[in-house]
């Protein structure tokens, strides 16, 4: 029977613990229902050790970026040619210094801000654009579908970095243009996913049911189709983040992204490339940072898939 929670418990909210309040089968308000769903998602996600590890990496990244001025031992731009290319664990420079004598640890710490900036902007632009195009294409079908999907195919036909290179070459080098270029090349897969999901959702009875309440196309797409597409897009975004960070680093490496003296990780690797045989740490430390953050996003993406995928989470 669904009414397993006795009424006496429901009548005395003060005696409930937080956990009971969150896990109740019979929430008494919209807020409680929403919080309960969030809590169950959170516990399910954190029950997976690897996901928790990925989440910790990303929390660490955010904290480092937020408190960069406090954490960095040196000014990331301060040059000291007398102390150039110091090895690891030298006095005052744990990760050594680069070819201009700048402290690598400080530069990696400040570089986390640039990485977060890129990640946040791309995560805002690409999936949203893909969602708009994909759901409109899938819902309306016909001519709209054909036109939008052919445009998507054109973008998909190019390798991401090559297309980003072309955009940056046209728009000019710089971190903002790199973000725009990456976003422009990243949205087509999202549009494809959103369209595929929309095609299956569109036929569902619950969409027919809401149409019978007189709902218009805009209402149906935003209120009924988007919520179901968003979860698979979020998973895809977190899994794509590693690739996006690498693309940004690649652009930086090629000198088309962040410009010197900006401590962007890809640009730092590019600078260290010249000394890679004799002074390996100059390129390796920012490389490790990129690796760690990419790993964090991948682990989190895997965990989010378990939580958000409606096929696996609808029955709990």
């Amino acid at each position, binding site marked *: 029977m669904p009414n397993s929670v006795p009424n006496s418990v429901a009548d005395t909210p003060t005696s409930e613990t937080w956990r009971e309040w969150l896990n109740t089968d019979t929430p008494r308000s919209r807020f409680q229902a929403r919080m309960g769903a969030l809590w169950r998602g959170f516990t399910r996600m954190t029950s997976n050790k690897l996901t928790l590890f990925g989440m910790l990496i990303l929390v660490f990244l955010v904290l480092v970026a937020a408190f960069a001025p406090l954490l960095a031992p040196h000014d990331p731009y301060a040059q000291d040619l007398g102390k150039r290319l110091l090895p690891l664990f030298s006095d005052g420079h744990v990760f050594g210094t680069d070819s201009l004598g700048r402290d690598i640890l400080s530069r990696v710490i400040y570089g986390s801000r640039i990485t977060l900036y890129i990640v946040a902007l791309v995560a805002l632009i690409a999936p949203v654009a893909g969602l708009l195009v994909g759901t409109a294409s899938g819902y309306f079908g016909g001519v709209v579908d054909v036109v939008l999907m052919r445009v998507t195919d054109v973008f998909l036909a190019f390798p991401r970095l090559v297309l980003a290179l072309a955009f940056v070459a046209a728009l000019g080098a710089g971190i903002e243009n790199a973000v725009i270029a990456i976003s422009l090349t990243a949205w087509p897969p999202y549009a494809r996913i959103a369209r595929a999901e929309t095609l299956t959702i569109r036929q569902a009875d619950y969409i027919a049911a809401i149409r019978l*309440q007189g709902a218009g196309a805009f209402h149906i797409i935003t209120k009924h189709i988007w919520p179901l597409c968003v979860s698979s897009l979020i998973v895809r975004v977190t899994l794509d983040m590693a690739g996006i960070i690498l693309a940004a680093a690649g652009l930086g490496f090629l000198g088309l992204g962040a410009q010197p003296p900006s401590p962007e990780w890809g640009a730092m690797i590019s600078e260290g490339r010249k000394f890679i045989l004799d002074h390996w740490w100059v390129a390796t430390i920012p490389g490790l940072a990129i690796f760690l953050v990419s790993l964090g996003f991948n682990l989190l993406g895997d965990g989010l898939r378990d939580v958000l995928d409606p096929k696996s989470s609808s029955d709990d």
Partner: protein
Amino acid sequence: MSAAIETRELNVWFGKGRDRVDAVRDANLIVPQGTSHGIVGESGSGKSTILRALVGLVPTVSGEMIIEGTSVTTPRNGAFYKTVQMVFQDPYASLHPRHSVDQVLNETLKLHGFGDREDRVLQLLKDVGLGEAFRFRFPHQLSGGQRQRVAIARALAPQPDILLLDEPTSALDVSVQAEILNLLVDLRAERSLTYVMVSHDLAVVAHLCGEVSVMQNGVIVETLPVEKLRRLEADHDYTKHLLKASADTGHA
């Protein structure tokens, strides 16, 4: 007596050219106000398609559909959806998996421009025999019968005169079927609704309906009062065949 629903020469088809399938052919249906009309037939006979065509979910239609004396417009307008509502076959598919019961009912009421939605949601839940405890549940926290009650509450929200029922019990357990059927009987009595119910189960139709149309291959072959059906007095061969098949399996 004025007819709640009348169709004249209703044709519904899918696809075009050589792929064209005529799902319903020249269907003439008259359902008087306040009555309950059953449509029976085997799978693919076009019975559900008639309902979907009535509410405008199938666009490829010819012929005339008249609801309470006025021809329907395409696309249907708000007044139509306030008059005619539908309950779908599969309660597992007809509720949005991410919307709570409260969201479903609230949204429906909002789309129809109702003001005092809080009270109405509670009243609707009461009307379909669900308590307040179910208000903030999600579909996956409900049983099939409870889901179908929510779907019925949603259909009742705009206070329609006509309810189209597309095999509302076929996806449910037998014991739950009876509960839902009794709920539908009670609701019709309380609100003097007009029902059109599609089913392949003669017993269900006989329980709920006063008149029954029998469909075969997209054609209404016979319309007869349910008493005649009970006495097994069918005129058309196909109806006799249906009755025999039903009697053999122990139904009706």
